[in-house]
């Protein structure tokens, strides 16, 4: 069992997401520790990218804030920050990044850095299952789980993707659901049932979108919030630590 999967044993896991460098890397460091203190089981850290095509407007804006912050926010600066907090963070850290920053850094160099800085997994939203062979050997070599994404439109692909999944499986809402549009019907329980047929890998659903909450509380192993914490950072900036703590604590207690 990987470090990530362990975080799901015997409880509903809360996965907290924020964008690195928003509003600064020093603050990211502080927010990570606050999330852990409040009971987050896994921490997802977004590597800001110039063109985050799969992100909600809320997260797109966080990417812009991070990249335009004084001193910028480069991949190396993020790894330096992770190295600093490594000994203080006991929950698994997962990086969410587009493929180009990883490719440009070098697949092996990037995975080696992940290993050195305690990154347990990586989510790459623009790398579908079909293209992962070029990076998978390096991820395996350094023990970094590639988190699989399953979308409502995955249909017949669900079993193929889930069959080889490691860490956890992130079941995406459709992008419009993530934007808060209410006219979307996605049969999440059917997707989860299909996943369960082929794997024991934990399933994570996104909260803060319009799923029938009562239903998915029972079917998911964990929950991720994409916008909520980022919204708190947008609102409170440097003073977001306490609001983040309160939000995570309240959410974890409600699970």
């Amino acid at each position, binding site marked *: 069992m990987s470090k990530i999967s362990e975080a799901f044993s015997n409880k509903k896991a809360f996965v907290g997401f924020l964008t690195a460098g928003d509003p600064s890397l020093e603050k990211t460091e502080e927010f990570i520790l606050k999330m852990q203190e409040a009971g987050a089981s896994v921490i997802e850290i977004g590597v800001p990218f110039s*063109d985050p*095509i799969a992100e909600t407007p809320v997260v797109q804006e966080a990417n812009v804030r991070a990249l335009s912050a004084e001193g910028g926010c*480069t*991949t190396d600066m993020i790894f330096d920050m992770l190295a600093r907090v490594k000994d203080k963070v006991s929950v698994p850290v997962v990086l969410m990044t587009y493929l*180009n920053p990883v490719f*440009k850094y070098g697949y092996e160099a990037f995975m080696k850095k992940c290993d050195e800085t305690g990154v347990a997994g990586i989510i790459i939203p623009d790398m579908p299952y079909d293209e992962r062979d070029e990076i998978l050997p390096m991820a395996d070599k350094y023990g970094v789980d590639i988190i699989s994404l399953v979308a409502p439109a995955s249909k017949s692909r669900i079993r193929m993707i889930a069959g080889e999944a490691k860490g956890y499986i992130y079941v995406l809402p459709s992008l419009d659901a993530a934007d808060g549009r209410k006219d979307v019907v996605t049969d999440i329980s059917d997707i989860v049932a299909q996943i369960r047929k082929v794997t024991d890998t934990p399933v994570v659903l996104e909260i803060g979108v319009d799923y029938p909450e009562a239903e998915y509380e029972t079917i998911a192993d964990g929950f991720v919030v994409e916008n909520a914490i980022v919204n708190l950072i947008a609102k409170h900036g440097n003073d977001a630590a306490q609001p983040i703590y309160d939000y995570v604590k309240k959410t974890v207690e409600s699970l």
Partner: protein
Amino acid sequence: MAKGRYGIHGGQYIPESLMDEVLKLEEAYEFYKKDEDFNRELNALLAEYAGRPSLLYYAEKMTKDLGGAKIYFKREDLNHTGSHKINNVLGQALLAKKMGKTRIIAETGAGQHGVATATAAALLGLECEIFMGEEDTIRQALNVYRMELLGAKVNAVKTGTRTLKDAVNECMREWTMRMDDTLYVLGSVMGPHPFPMIVRDFQSVISREARAQILEKEGKLPDVVMACVGGGSNAMGMFYEFIKDESVKLIGCEAAGLGADTDKTAATVTTGSIGVFHGMKSYFCQDEYGQIAPVYSISAGLDYPGVGPEHANLHDIGRAQYVPVTDDEAVEAFEYIARTEGIIAAIESSHAVAHLMKIAPKMEKDQIIICCLSGRGDKDVAAIARYRGVDLHE
């Protein structure tokens, strides 16, 4: 490794949410490209509506004035809607209809692909939405109104650099949100497989015609075939049937903006490096950490930080050469071809004309150049006037 590779380039680097739809598109295209009815309908549209075949025009005055190679222009500017974009759009819009889609969406830079898409949508009775960088809606305001006249909704994209790449981002997001009734009509030989293949196939009519036309007129193949390159659709169409003719030199002309040695440039092959973006592995203008660079060119149609994967491979294997052309050179060529041949060519195409003006005088009189005039320049007149400091009261 997935399909759709050109050497190491290409692929399908897209969010999982889009995979099923892209695979469906590939399947539909593989079926319809061999379907007799589809091809008959498409060929009828190209001949009766778009005005194909386009002329292969002998530019006698330029040939004499430059004093070297014989110069021919493939006149894609004379197509309906004024550029090569209609070739691809009619194909993809017809494909959308066959797939049962009722709505098409597209990105546009200069507005030519947007206008062509809006046109095809009007003709074929499809709903149409265009995504255009806000910066470009200002540079090409006339084309925005043109698209609206054709019944399309134009969305000004206010993210990122507010130009072509951001329009592509927004179009991909929109497609992810609404796939069931919608096809993304990509405007260039880029994006995830099968788009680079589909667009190249629909654009290869350019070189299929040009090759037959030059053999009829001159009884031999040209020495040089050239075109401007942004994403690279007119160039890919112009090159494709000549790739196998090894004696034919292929030259793609990139937009260097203020110069390939400045940071105000869009010369991707000259200044970029390999990356993965917009669904494909190819060359991109980017920084050392893989952040896509803001690019600049006077031409909104070439103002793109990447290049199609098949071009990237033609560059890697040395089959085609890619050269940078600056704003200044392109504007001079724009004015020169207007004065000399009475042709107002698009500022995009004028990049190719500018390089032609450099190489033609150095070639022998019995040598032949075919240059693709990908579009007409009416849309650029106001911008050129501004560039020259002329105050137009429109």
